[in-house]
């Protein structure tokens, strides 16, 4: 039961990640690609948590926390860039 359930969960998350990558490659405007990167970051936090549960080592939860905060900073910087401002403002 456990292995089969985790296989299904991981496959579904991989499909979601491929949807994000499709939008990243296809998106007609730059903000579309930024949205795809932002959502891929949030998806990977969930992936890390699931991997921590499946492997039994909670090191991957540290990875998830760091990824959540870094993805936030990166998205804020890209939003400032979209607005047409310089980064040091």
């Amino acid at each position, binding site marked *: 039961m456990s292995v089969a359930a985790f296989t299904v969960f991981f496959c*579904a998350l991989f499909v979601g990640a491929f949807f994000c990558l499709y939008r990243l490659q296809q998106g007609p405007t730059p903000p579309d690609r930024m949205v795809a990167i932002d*959502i891929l970051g949030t998806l990977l936090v*969930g992936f890390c948590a699931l991997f921590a549960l499946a492997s039994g080592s*909670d090191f991957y939860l540290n990875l998830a926390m760091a990824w959540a905060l870094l993805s936030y900073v990166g998205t804020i910087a890209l*939003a400032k860039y*979209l607005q047409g401002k310089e980064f040091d*403002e």
Partner: protein
Amino acid sequence: MSSVAYFLIGLGVLFDLFGTLGLVRLPDLYNRLQAGTKCVTLGTCLILIGAAVGHGSAEFVIRALLCAVFVLLTSPVAAHALARGSHLGGFKLWEKSVVDKYEEDADKVRQQAGGDGVSA
């Protein structure tokens, strides 16, 4: 692992999957941002809570819940900043969109933002 943990993780994975499906299928930057952010934030929080329920040790539970709080705080703020930045940067809505409340006082917002946003 209890069946509650399986249920929570499965629900979260489904939310993630449908959110990213909306990212592919919807017509517009703002629609995609809304669908993706709402569904994927809830889905990731459900996965984290399910992992906490399933593992059960104190270190794991504290870290997973802290991570859920981080996601819940940062993801909507990042999405709002992206939407605001791209609207001020002059990226248009879908042509069949019916209402744009932000455009009605966009001049005021642009003056407030320093006036150097790229004109639409």
